[in-house]
């Protein structure tokens, strides 16, 4: 029983990372209707930037703040320069561009920092300390931080979308861009905002997970697939779905690896794949998604 609860706790921790990535994916999908295949690689790049800052002597808060700000700017810039011109093109064209980004960024990171894994410190000083929770569950400080940050981010996004004017305008822009423009809303700037926020969340996910997995150019590919699974399960239109989906995927991965002998540790990713497939076949909108996701 203890082991089971530990697995559940581990699953929730991992799930929080997936949820953060899923939130980034959902954000972009809600604002522009696209799936950003390069999300993971951009997060990885941001994490390397953070590592470099730390390595050259910056304190953790400074490194994180600069990285998040730079990620925001980068995301907004990518939307404006790369995505905006082809927004109305075929899905294939947009897939191509985000894939092109994927490849470039991955190689860029390998070129600048070489493919050797780098160590990244946990976010807070107590990150390495192990905490004893009820029922014999043990988690270290970084893991608790991850869950806490997910809750904070999810809460902040909720407030942002439901209670602020910009959040309302972003929802309007994603619901009907034409009517938004006719109402005087600068849709272009909102798109940049959406991508900037998504990049920031991806960067946060990268910074949080890197200490656990070691920072290397292939860090985020796997996390991205899990993030996709989470977003698919929860519904690409729903931030709540992203959180629930992320936790669910984390739990499924953790429990399946331990309790389903066939899966073992190699095929954990297959769990994500199977989930994606089943959800898309049975209920394409996901658990919480509401609209038809097809864009003409």
């Amino acid at each position, binding site marked *: 029983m203890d082991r089971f609860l530990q697995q559940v706790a581990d699953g929730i921790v991992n799930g929080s990372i997936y949820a953060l990535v899923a939130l980034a994916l959902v954000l972009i999908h809600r604002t522009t209707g696209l799936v950003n295949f390069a999300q993971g690689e951009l997060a990885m790049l941001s994490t390397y930037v953070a590592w470099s800052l730390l390595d050259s002597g910056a304190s953790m808060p400074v490194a994180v703040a600069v990285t998040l700000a730079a990620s925001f700017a980068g995301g907004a810039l990518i939307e404006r320069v790369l995505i905006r011109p082809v927004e109305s093109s075929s899905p294939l064209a947009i897939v191509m561009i985000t894939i092109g980004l994927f490849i470039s960024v991955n190689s860029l990171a390998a070129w600048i920092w070489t493919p050797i894994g780098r160590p990244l410190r946990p976010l807070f000083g107590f990150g390495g300390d192990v905490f004893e929770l009820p029922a014999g569950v043990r988690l270290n400080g970084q893991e608790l931080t991850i869950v806490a940050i997910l809750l904070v981010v999810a809460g902040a996004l909720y407030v942002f979308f439901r209670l602020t004017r910009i959040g*309302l305008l972003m*929802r309007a822009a994603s619901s009907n861009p*034409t*009517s938004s*423009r*006719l*109402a*005087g*809303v600068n849709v272009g700037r909102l798109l940049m905002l959406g991508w900037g926020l998504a990049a920031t969340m991806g960067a946060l996910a990268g910074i949080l997970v890197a200490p656990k997995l070691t920072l290397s150019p292939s860090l985020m590919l796997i996390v991205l697939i899990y993030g996709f699974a989470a977003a698919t399960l929860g519904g690409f239109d729903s931030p709540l779905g992203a959180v629930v989906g992320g936790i669910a995927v984390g739990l499924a991965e953790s429990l399946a690896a331990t309790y389903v002998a066939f899966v073992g540790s190699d095929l954990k990713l297959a769990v994500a794949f199977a989930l994606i497939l089943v959800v898309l076949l049975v209920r394409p909108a996901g658990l919480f998604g509401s*609209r038809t996701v097809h864009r003409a």
Partner: protein
Amino acid sequence: MSALLAVRDLHAGYGPIRVLHEIDLEVGTGEIVAVLGANGAGKTTLLRAISGLGRASGSVRIDGREVLGRPAERLARLGIGHVPEGRGTFIDLTVEENLRVATRSRVDIERWYDQFPVLAQRRRQLAGTLSGGEQQMLAIARTLLSKPRVLLLDEPSTGLAPTITREVFRILAEVRALESTAMLIVEQNASLALDLADRAYVLETGRIVLGGPSNQLRYDDAVRGAYLGY
């Protein structure tokens, strides 16, 4: 006298397909002008060209100021309020949220709730669940909240039952009486349009073929035969 909205020699289309040719029209302050025409005549293209959604060449002036080529969000702030074909409500947002997109002013929103009690009743409902007529009122209210100088309406009667349509047109007349908002209404329902409007134009295959006071057009033989059915 310079008109509030003056369109001169407007040409518009989609890529190589030309839809509108040499369009000249005017809307004066406080005037309601109708544009009649059959499907495919280019009515929607006309409004889109004026509001900045579509590409066009020629001249569009508001209060004498040239605005052709500016993006739609800019023109909306310059005083053009376009209620598009199909209403264009934000179906995923509530009625209240739809109105809040247009303005921050609580006072203004409450004022339009008074004008349209049915919207007040449904303020927490998702706009997508409203009936066609209610969505039309919502779209008009939302556009009016931006305080436009001229309101462009694209076929407000589409998909609405006759009683609802008459109600919508009655509201438009009231709005003009209250706010002196100028309006350019494209409509297939010529009879209702001519009742409401001061002047009208007839659009056929992308060209203005007739124009004048509505009383005059109502008794014009060509118009009667083609659009009024008698």
